[in-house]
C-alpha cells in the first residue's frame, strides 16, 4: 500500500522512479564507499527539478500537496537515503524563512533553490545538541548589520549550501528568548566551513561544521524578530521531522523489497527460503510496521496541509518510522543470512543509513518528550 496521491502525482512518481532506478540507485553504491558528495547526480536531480518539490507555488514551486511530495521523496529514499536527505535538507533550511521571514527573504531563499542552490539549517553546536538553548554563537547588532561569531556542527548540506538559516544569541541574559534566527548567504566574508564528518551512513549527503568569524550580514537578514529564533527553530523542526519519517519509511520499504526478492530466489533444503512461514512472518511484521509508519507520515502531512496542529503527529511519525527502519533493515540482513552482512549486498547499507534517523532533527528521546508533553499536557 502506498500513499494515496493525485493522478498527477502518480504520473510524476513513474518519472521519478525511472530517474532513481537509472541515475541514483546503483551509482550511489560507489559514493557510499568513497564518501564523495555525488555532484553529478544532484545536478541531474536539479535539472529534473526534484530539488524544489517543497518550494511553495507562489514562490516558483509546483503546488503539489505534501502527501504527493512524500510519495516522491519515498521513491528517492528507496534509491538512496543520503540523496533524499540532501534534497530534504534544503527544505529544512528554507523553512525558517517561510515560517517567519519577510516577503523579500522568502522570495530570495526560494529563488536560490529554484535556481539550483541548496539550503542548510544551522542550529546544532558542539555544546548544544538536544539542549538547543545552550548555543554559544552570538550575533551583535552594529548599525545596519549584525555580526555573527560561533561554530555550528553536524550541518547537513553545510559544505554545499547557497544559504544558511542560523540561530545565534542576541541577548545572552534572556535564555531561549535571547536566540534569534538569521539568513546568511554563502560567500559572505567571515563564513566558512570546517570539519567534514566521515559518517556511518547517508554518505552521499554532506555534513560539516559551519563557522562564523566576524561574519557581517545586513540587519534585514534577521528572520522574524529578535528573540524569536528558538521558537522559529522549533516550528521548523516540527515541520521538517515528518519528512525524516518519510525518508526512513523509504529505507524500510527498500529493505523489505530486497529481502523478499532475495529470499524468493535463495534455495535451501530444496525450496526458496521464503516458503518458510518463519520468514513470511518476518515480512508480515515488516509490512505492518512500514505501512503504519507511512500512514503516520501521511496523517501528519495532511494535518499540515489542512492548517491543523501537527507537532505531536510529526514527532510520532519521525520517531516511529526511524525506529522501525532500524528494525526492518536489521531483519532484512537476517533474512539475507551471511550475505546480508557483506557489503556486496544492498541491505547492510540500509541499516547504516537508517541509524541517523533516530538521531538527527531531534533524537527519538526528544521526540518522546514532544509526544509526552502533547499527550499529558501541563499538570
Amino acid at each position, binding site marked *: 500500500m502506498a500513499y494515496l496521491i493525485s493522478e*498527477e502525482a502518480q504520473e510524476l512518481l513513474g518519472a521519478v522512479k525511472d530517474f532513481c532506478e537509472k541515475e541514483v540507485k546503483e551509482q550511489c553504491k560507489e559514493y557510499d564507499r568513497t564518501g564523495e558528495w555525488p555532484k553529478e547526480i544532484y545536478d541531474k536531480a536539479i535539472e529534473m*527539478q*526534484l530539488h524544489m518539490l517543497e518550494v511553495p507555488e507562489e514562490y516558483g514551486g509546483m503546488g503539489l500537496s505534501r502527501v504527493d511530495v512524500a510519495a516522491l521523496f519515498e521513491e528517492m529514499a528507496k534509491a538512496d537515503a543520503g540523496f533524499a536527505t540532501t534534497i530534504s535538507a534544503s527544505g529544512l533550511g528554507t523553512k525558517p524563512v517561510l515560517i517567519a521571514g519577510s516577503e523579500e527573504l522568502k522570495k530570495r531563499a526560494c529563488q536560490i533553490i529554484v535556481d539550483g542552490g541548496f539550503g542548510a539549517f544551522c542550529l546544532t553546536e558542539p555544546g548544544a545538541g538536544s539542549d538547543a538553548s545552550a548555543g554559544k554563537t552570538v550575533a551583535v547588532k552594529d548599525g545596519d548589520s549584525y555580526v555573527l561569531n560561533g561554530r555550528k556542527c553536524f550541518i547537513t548540506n553545510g559544505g554545499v549550501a547557497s544559504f544558511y538559516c542560523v540561530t545565534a544569541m542576541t541577548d545572552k541574559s534572556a535564555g531561549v528568548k535571547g536566540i534569534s534566527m538569521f539568513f546568511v548567504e554563502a560567500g559572505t566574508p567571515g563564513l566558512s566551513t570546517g570539519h567534514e564528518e566521515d559518517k556511518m551512513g547517508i554518505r552521499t549527503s554532506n555534513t560539516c561544521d559551519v563557522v562564523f568569524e566576524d561574519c557581517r550580514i545586513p540587519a534585514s537578514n534577521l528572520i522574524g524578530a529578535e528573540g524569536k529564533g528558538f521558537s522559529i527553530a522549533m516550528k521548523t523542526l516540527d515541520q521538517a521531522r515528518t519528512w525524516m519519517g518519510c525518508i526512513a519509511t523509504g529505507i524500510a520499504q527498500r529493505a523489505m523489497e530486497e529481502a523478499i526478492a532475495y529470499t524468493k530466489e535463495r534455495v535451501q533444503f530444496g525450496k526458496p527460503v521464503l516458503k518458510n512461514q518463519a520468514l513470511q512472518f518476518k515480512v508480515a511484521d515488516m509490512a505492518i510496521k512500514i505501512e503504519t509508519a507511512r500512514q503516520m507520515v501521511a496523517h501528519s502531512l495532511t494535518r499540515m496541509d489542512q492548517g491543523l496542529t501537527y507537532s505531536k503527529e510529526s514527532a510520532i511519525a519521525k520517531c516511529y518510522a526511524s525506529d522501525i527502519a532500524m528494525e526492518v533493515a536489521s531483519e532484512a540482513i537476517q533474512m539475507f543470512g551471511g550475505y546480508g552482512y557483506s557489503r556486496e549486498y544492498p541491505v547492510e547499507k540500509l541499516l547504516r543509513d537508517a541509524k541517523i534517523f533516530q538521531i538527527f532533527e531531534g533524537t527519538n528521546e526528544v521526540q518522546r518528550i514532544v509526544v509526552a508533553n502533547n499527550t499529558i499536557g501541563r499538570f
Partner: protein
Amino acid sequence: MEILVCLKQVPDDSVEIRLKPGTEEVNLDGVANVVNAFDTYALEMAARLKEAVGGSVTAVTVGPEGAKDAVKTCLAVGANQGYLISDPAFEGADTLGRSKILAAAIKRLETEAGKPFDLIFCGREATDRATGQLGPQLAETLGVGVITDLVDIEQTAGGICAKQETEEGYRRVEAATPCVVTVNKPAYDPRYPTIKNKMAARKMPIPVLSAAELGQVDPGQPGVHVVKVYEPAKRQAGVKIKEETCADSAIKAVGMMAEAKLL
C-alpha cells in the same frame, strides 16, 4: 525548422513477454505501455535540433485512445504539440497502411498550419514487432527521400547532414529537405522530464484526428499475413571446450563436429 516525430506506443520492453500457455496470444496482462525506445531517441534528436536552430516539434501517433499517454509523455520532453490519429477503421493496419494514414495526417497538419514539415523523424524500428519498415514506407508514400539509422544530425544550407550508422561504421549523408529520417541509438540519452514540464504536459490538449478528418485515407488490406506466433526456442546448454591450448581446443571441437556428422 518544422519537425514532425512519429511515435508508437509499445509494451514495456524491459520485461519478459510470453505467450499465453497453449495459445498464439501474446500475454500483455500487467505489462505497461511505453513509448518505443527508438522513438524516444528520435524525439530527443529532434528536440536538440529544434533547440539549436529554432522551430517546433510536433509528435504524432496512430493508435487507440490510450496512446494519448505516449503523446503526453513526449510533450514533457521536447515536443511542442501532439496529435493522436485514431479511428476504428485504422485497427489492424500494417506498416504500409500506417504509413498511408500518417502521410494523410501530415498533409492535413501541413494544410492546417499553412507550412510544410521540413523533417519527419521516426525510430529505426519499434521494439514490439521490429519490422523497421515504417520510415522508408512513409518516405515513399510522401514522395520524399529517406536516411535510415541516424545517430546524429545537423542543419546545412539546403537541408541536413546526417551521421548514419552502418554495419561497417559511419557514413555522412546529406539530403535536401523535406525528407524522412529514422533514428538509431545516439551517443546521448533522452532527457528526463522536468516536474513542471510533466505537470504542464498533463494539461495540454491532444487533438484526435479521425479517418473523416484525414479525407479518404485507405490503409488497404494488410499485405503481411501472420502465419504463426511462437516463442523463440529455448537454447540448449552448450558445451564448453577448454583444453590447455587453443590449438587443442580447436582439434577437439573439430573432432566433436565430425563425430556429430556436421563436417
